[in-house]
């Protein structure tokens, strides 16, 4: 076998490797610009063994609100619940679990806000997912939650929103206006002032 290793061929070889490296660097610059705003908004798991979202808040203008689905079920105390029965009032639908740390952190704010607004104007409803009734009731006792929560262990109420404005994580809060349309969604822990402002905004709106 001819083993002619001319210096010229070695140079050519190095040159090609060098070009490849340069092009690689160029591509690297492009690929590292991670785009995908949608991807960023969708919460992903972070090894916590439940999907917790980073905070995001979306408000839907009056004309472009999707209708909330007809959801119903049983509350933690065994009573019947139907979202349709809340027409005429703003509904704050909060998805929570007693095991979920951010839910526990926002619970005082929710409890306080539920007292702040008159129940003829704003109704708070919880949706307890992936939990146990006993633990959920203990949670309500701890934080003084007096508004009802749906016993939604199989996430059917959450599922009902899948084609409109799904609760993207635990905790999530949906605001439904007086006509039964979804006015806002908060993914992540709510703050007292933030949620109050949001409720006021929905209250002040046309419908």
């Amino acid at each position, binding site marked *: 076998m*001819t083993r002619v290793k001319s210096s010229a061929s070695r140079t050519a070889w190095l040159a090609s490797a060098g070009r*490849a490296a340069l*092009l690689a660097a160029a591509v690297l610059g492009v690929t590292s610009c991670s785009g995908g705003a949608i*991807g960023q908004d969708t919460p992903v798991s*972070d090894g916590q063994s439940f999907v917790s979202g980073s905070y995001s808040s979306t408000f839907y203008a009056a004309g472009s609100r999707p209708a909330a689905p007809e959801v119903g079920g049983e509350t933690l105390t065994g009573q019947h619940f139907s979202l349709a029965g809340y027409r005429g009032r703003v509904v704050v639908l909060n998805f929570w679990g007693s095991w979920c740390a951010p839910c526990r952190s926002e619970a005082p704010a929710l409890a306080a806000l539920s007292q702040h607004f008159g129940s003829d104007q704003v109704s708070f409803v919880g949706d307890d997912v992936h939990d*146990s009734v006993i633990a959920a009731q*203990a949670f309500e006792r701890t934080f003084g939650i007096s508004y009802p929560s749906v016993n939604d262990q199989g*996430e059917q109420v959450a599922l009902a929103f899948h084609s409109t404005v799904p609760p993207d994580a635990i905790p999530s809060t949906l605001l439904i206006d007086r006509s039964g349309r979804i006015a806002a969604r908060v993914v992540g822990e709510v703050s007292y002032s933030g949620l109050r402002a949001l409720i006021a905004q929905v209250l002040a709106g046309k419908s």
Partner: protein
Amino acid sequence: MTASVQSQGSQGGVPDEGQGGGTRDARSAAASGKFGVIAWLRWGWRQLTSMRTALVLLFLLALASIPGSVLPQQGIDPAAVSRYYAQHPALAPVLAKFSGFDVFGAPWFAAIYLLLFTSLAGCVLPRALRLAKSARQAPPATPRHLGRLPYSAAVRTTAGPGQALESAAGVFARRRFRLRTGDGWVSAEKGYLHEVGNLLFHVALLGLLASVALGGLFGYKANRLLVEGDSFANTPTALDVFRPGRLVAATDLQPFSVTLRRFTASYVQSGPERGQPSWFSAALRYTAQVGGPARSYDLRVNHPLNVDGVQVFLIGHGYAPVFKVTDGTGHLVFDQAVPFIPVEQSGLTSAGVVKVPDASPQQLGFAGVFLPTAVDVGGRLASAFPAAVFPRVSLVSYAGDLGLNSGQPQSVYDLDTRHMHRMPVSPAPLAPGQSITLPHGLGKLTFVGYRQWASLAITYDPGQLPALISALAALAGLILSFLVRRRRMFVRVGAAPDGGTVVELGGLTRSDAAGGFEAEFAELAGEIRKAVGGSAAAEARRQPASLVAGTAAGARPGDPVEEPGGEDVAMARKGE
């Protein structure tokens, strides 16, 4: 000198690669007086699409994959990554900066395979065009000296030259060669499927990449651990792990629901494989749509559930002991099954944590193990068999602040005891029905019994089917290009010195990957001899050549050469 280099380049099958191309560019650029960006870009492009670059990139990609198999990867085993951080506290952050724990998603890894595919595309597309063009062209003229070809033979016949030529041509036509006739000669060619197969293989690889991208953009993967009796719906609120593709939103999730009615596991009872699982079965009930009809399904390993385009797989199982906790005020504050995670496979000893955040006056936490078949091994507890023959639970008790109220998300399998104090209660194993009574009236925990859990993987990948098709197409192309050889046969007739006609045959093969052209040539020679009614003037001859680096005259190192089964740039470049 210049003239001879260029003329050799144009005829000897020497491609404009490496030095050759660069030199020619440099010369022409020097001649025109400028050495502009275009020339550099063209040179760079030629470098990228050269065989050598392909070789380098293939090696680079292989090399780059190695750390991804040696270091723990975040996407595969996050727990192993955490362990690595714990074991190598100084090295781990450095590695993380270079995406050491996410090698296959790293930008540098992407750069390598993107470059490789660019090189591939840049080489394949022009070749495809050339193939289309050459498929329309006629075969080349028969060379003058057929004896110089690697395969040659001669036949003497009494038939006239014209007749002999026709008969020879007839032999080729019957075997579906493409023919071209000239004055006293016939040239035949066959075997384009070789290049077709070659191109199909490489294009299919591009298709594979596109399919992977499709899945990465629009697909998602999720996990959910489900205890017997529980249900879940395919929404982010219900999933333990949710890894969406870049363009996936929560509204894209298919709205199915699943209930785990019952999980059964069977284990080998005796013999050398005692304790090894025999089979698993998860009896499911599911609905594909909200409010749709419920169906039953027996989910097993290697037997996934297909619902609404999504696949659900059984990937793990374990035990979930059931606990009841009464707090200091006498309220029942906890009554549920808690999944414990197996820490070893032979006895399924499982570890877990019970958190009771709504116990009063202090939050309670318990951490310990569940032993399906508890035995005492020299003072230590172990599980002798994975079935729950003799279930026991051993827990350490804590009271204090679990840290949940702060809002910082915690893993449900980890107990943060930084703000808790351990209770002086013996972690003696509890049988079902037994309790731990905590001191200072803090409460009582009862081990009620156990259930089993199954963990499900939910995957949606729209690129799955295209990937399969691409892979199979690549395989087909590969086999085709290895099996088919591109060959040319030439026949020349001339008058024999002592009357009669001499029919010369010559054969040439370019891609004799699987071998066998010798046999085919012999067959053709025999048929032609029969057709022209002659006798052999000379035995069919084969000229083995020296395999000295396979260089054609004038070829330089780095240039592609014709190789049976290999790339055929030289030939393609000549526009044949």
